[in-house]
């Protein structure tokens, strides 16, 4: 059914016009998947999402109410709820049915309520690290381990010089089986290799004996 009875004819095509952000999914798309890229402000989360996404990264927001949850089940939006937190995302069509969404999530403690929503059903996570602010990653890694969400750590190399990976691993107190890689989040091939590393890590975790800590 068309809508020309309720709108001026000119309004329809304008809304329906595909834009770079509106590159439509395939009609057969039926299975959304998620990977979360988490890190501190300015570490390059959106850059990484954008370098592999088939759409220009989109930004949206969620309401922040009290610590620990969104307002999803609230029938009335509380009047006092005015704080919002923004996050970015992009997507990759994997095949006719499956679409992988990549979310860039702020790593700070006060955004944890958003993480719960992002991580629900996620395949895994990428922790993006800036070695000039390694401490920004501590909280994220701690929460991921607590939630038993598998992850890899990627050092976004802003400069040629920086601490070696073993030093980064030590500074993060990272378990030896958690992959730690370098990347340049601006480059598609580099970001892609980080995602592939995550998927391989997830595959390897399947081989671990039952009962062993999978993280």
């Amino acid at each position: 059914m068309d809508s020309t009875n309720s709108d001026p004819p000119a309004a329809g095509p304008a809304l329906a016009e595909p834009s770079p952000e509106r590159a439509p999914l395939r009609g057969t798309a039926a299975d959304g998947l998620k990977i979360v890229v988490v890190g501190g402000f300015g570490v390059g989360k959106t850059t990484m999402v954008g370098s592999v996404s088939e759409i220009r990264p989109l930004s949206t927001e969620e309401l922040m109410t009290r610590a620990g949850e969104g307002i999803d089940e609230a029938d009335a939006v509380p009047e006092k709820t005015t704080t919002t937190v923004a996050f970015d995302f992009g997507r990759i069509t994997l095949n006719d049915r499956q679409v992988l969404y990549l979310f860039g999530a702020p790593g700070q403690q006060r955004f944890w309520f958003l993480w719960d929503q992002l991580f629900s059903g996620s395949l895994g996570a990428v922790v993006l690290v800036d070695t000039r602010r390694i401490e920004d990653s501590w909280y994220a890694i701690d929460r991921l381990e607590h939630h038993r969400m598998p992850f890899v750590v990627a050092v976004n190399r802003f400069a040629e010089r920086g601490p070696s990976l073993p030093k980064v691993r030590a500074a993060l107190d990272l378990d030896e089986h958690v992959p730690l890689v370098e990347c340049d989040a601006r480059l598609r091939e580099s970001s892609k290799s980080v995602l592939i590393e995550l998927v391989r890590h997830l595959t390897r975790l399947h081989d671990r004996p039952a009962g062993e800590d999978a993280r």
Partner: protein
Amino acid sequence: MSARRHEQEDPDRYFTITGGRRDASLDLVALVVAEIGPLPGMSSEQVRILRLCRDAPVAVVELSAHLALPVSVVRILLRDMLADGRITVRHPVSAPEPEQLPDLETLKQVLVGLHQL
């Protein structure tokens, strides 16, 4: 989706019965499909949602971005539209359960898709 019953006049209850797998909630990447076109009397947000989802599925989070509305507000809109049969939702089927690994077939599909980038 199950048939309507009288007790489902409450959209929340209806959604609990028919809707998302987790927390009776719509996942960020649940894919929304319009089942009807815009009708007179619909809110402008509903009209926009139906237009956005008319030709191809659109994820909840993408609707949120295009409508410039917080995700939780879009969810409430979608829940009503779902209850009225104006949209259908394709829920994620390959997402791992909490504290579970994704299954190997899913990982294989993701790997293939990433290599094709």
